[in-house]
């Protein structure tokens, strides 16, 4: 058995690294180019974009899209609303997922299979929009923030993933050690399992955060007041879908091309405006599951 000198790399490792960097570099370019394109499009004349003039540089440079969006009163309100909904929703959702997944990951819990089936059924069968709306309405939650968060229930997919993580990624020996120490379930959970689950919690939080941030449909249905609209709903209403062309009214009044140009421009700028927060937050959450957070807790 060869004992390698610390830090020395074999040839195959060096080769691997080179191929790896090239591979990942290619992926980087392929992924970033369309994003770059969108950025360019957000400051170009849309009609130049659509004829293919903007592959490398903007054409017909204009900041009008951004001006429009930010002069829209509802945008800042929408941003604020979204931050509140997303913050609250992420917190509640992540907590719910974790506290549901943990007990279900304990092999000795009676009835865990039944409870799991209880949840999985809801992934496949649902009464639909109308009965849910009626329940929400009866609970006086229409036009309330809670209607955005609670009717979604527990994210069962996340529960399943979390449960898998608790079972397979946390060493059995840790649970045994805790049991031997006479630790109660809650103590094991709070003091041992949770701190080791930072990567999982980070991922669940991201899933929830992005889901709430992007959701416009729930707000559309449950929040009639336009002042409560989250950002995505506001943006969605600014755009005229292409179906609108079928509406005779827009044609008769003339000026369609002009209105269309603005909405096309806004389409691209709104993506930049709406996604920016998520992209900015990600690096902060990322550090929780980046390489290097290790478990070295089991000794001997």
């Amino acid at each position, binding site marked *: 058995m060869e004992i390698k000198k610390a830090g020395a790399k074999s040839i*195959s490792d060096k080769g691997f690294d080179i191929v790896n960097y090239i591979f990942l570099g290619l992926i*980087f370019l392929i*992924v970033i180019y369309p994003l770059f394109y969108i950025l360019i499009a957000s400051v170009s004349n849309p009609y130049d974009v659509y004829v293919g003039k903007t592959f490398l540089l903007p054409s017909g440079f204009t900041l009008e899209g951004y001006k429009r969006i930010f002069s829209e009163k509802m945008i800042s309100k929408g941003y604020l609303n979204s931050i509140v909904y997303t913050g609250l929703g992420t917190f509640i959702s992540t907590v719910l997922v974790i506290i549901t997944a943990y007990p279900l990951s304990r092999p000795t819990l009676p009835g865990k299979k039944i409870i799991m089936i209880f949840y999985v059924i809801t992934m496949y069968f649902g009464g639909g929009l109308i009965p849910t709306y009626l329940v929400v309405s009866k*609970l006086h939650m229409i036009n309330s923030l809670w209607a955005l968060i609670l009717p979604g229930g527990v994210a069962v997919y996340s529960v399943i993933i979390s449960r898998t993580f608790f079972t397979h990624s946390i060493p059995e020996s840790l649970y045994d050690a805790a049991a031997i120490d006479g630790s109660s379930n809650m103590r094991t959970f709070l003091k041992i399992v949770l701190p080791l689950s930072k990567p999982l919690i*980070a991922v669940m939080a991201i899933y929830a955060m992005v889901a709430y941030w992007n959701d416009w449909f729930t707000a559309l249905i449950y929040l009639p007041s336009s002042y409560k609209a989250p950002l995505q709903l506001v943006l969605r209403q600014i755009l005229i879908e292409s179906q609108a062309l079928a509406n005779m009214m827009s044609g008769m009044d003339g000026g369609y091309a002009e209105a269309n140009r603005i909405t096309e421009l806004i389409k691209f700028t709104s993506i930049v405006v709406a996604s920016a927060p998520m992209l900015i937050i990600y690096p902060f959450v990322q550090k929780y599951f980046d390489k290097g957070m290790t478990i070295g807790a089991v000794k001997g």
Partner: protein
Amino acid sequence: MSKKDISTIRNKNSKCNSVSLGKRILKHWDLYLLLIPGIVITIIFKYIPMYGIQIAFRDYNAVDGFWGSKWVGLDWFTKFFNNYNSSRMISNTLLLSLFTLLWSFPLPIIISLCLNQVKGARFRKTLQTVIYAPHFISIMVLCGIIKIFLSPYGGLFNMIVQAFGGMPIDFLGEPSWFRTIYVTSGIWQDTGWGTILYLATLSGVDTQLYDAAKVDGANKFKLIRHVDIPVLVPIIVIQLIMSFGNLMNVGFEKAFLLQTDLNSPTSDIIATYVYRQGILKAQYSFSTAVGLFNTAVNLVLLFVVNKICKKMSDISFL
């Protein structure tokens, strides 16, 4: 602690016969406490409204309500299956889903394994943020860009084709191209997002395992094979099972935006059909019935795949 002691304790905890059911429930009272909020919310918002499923068998209207609307039995299902396009829709939906699964399932795994091996923190972190960004591009904008890139008049891809001496291809007009376009754009958009979970799992790997393996003379390939992959297997299997359990749920928006009259033989899926039916009048009953059909297929797939996976790797979603 000897291995024997540990196994005794384990057996003590898991032997069902030795401790009565009542005692075990009492022992785990605090775990049940944790479960209660989720269960309560689920009952209120998921189970109570479930009576709504019956409108798949009724002709729902708001005044007669759920219990009063006329019972039509399987009429909606008959309408759906008798439609002259029904086999096309169903096969298109399934094929799109299967191809997406086939091509976009392995890629996040591969990329996370590779990323995990990158030592330079800055490169690694930047790459991560970049590949996850496409997930935020709305489908409307994505389809807008696709149309521009694929245009026969100056679109990026056709410029490349012409540079190689070919004739411009009308990508969106050829049914045979639709699936490729759909799947490839899906890969671009969601691969990065899919790596998050795998990277998180890999980050929890004990570095001692790496050190031990290196001492044993493992190069990077061996590390990946013997340390990384086994760690990911449970998550991979679960994701695979759940993906099959979702196979019929192909969203309508992307197919709708990329659909043209020419490529509809491959682009017309169940969701776009239901959408068309619903334009003239809201069709809650009909869409519920179609949804039930999708669910039925999904459930069958879920259980079959789960059983296979359980046999092969002892991992199941239950």
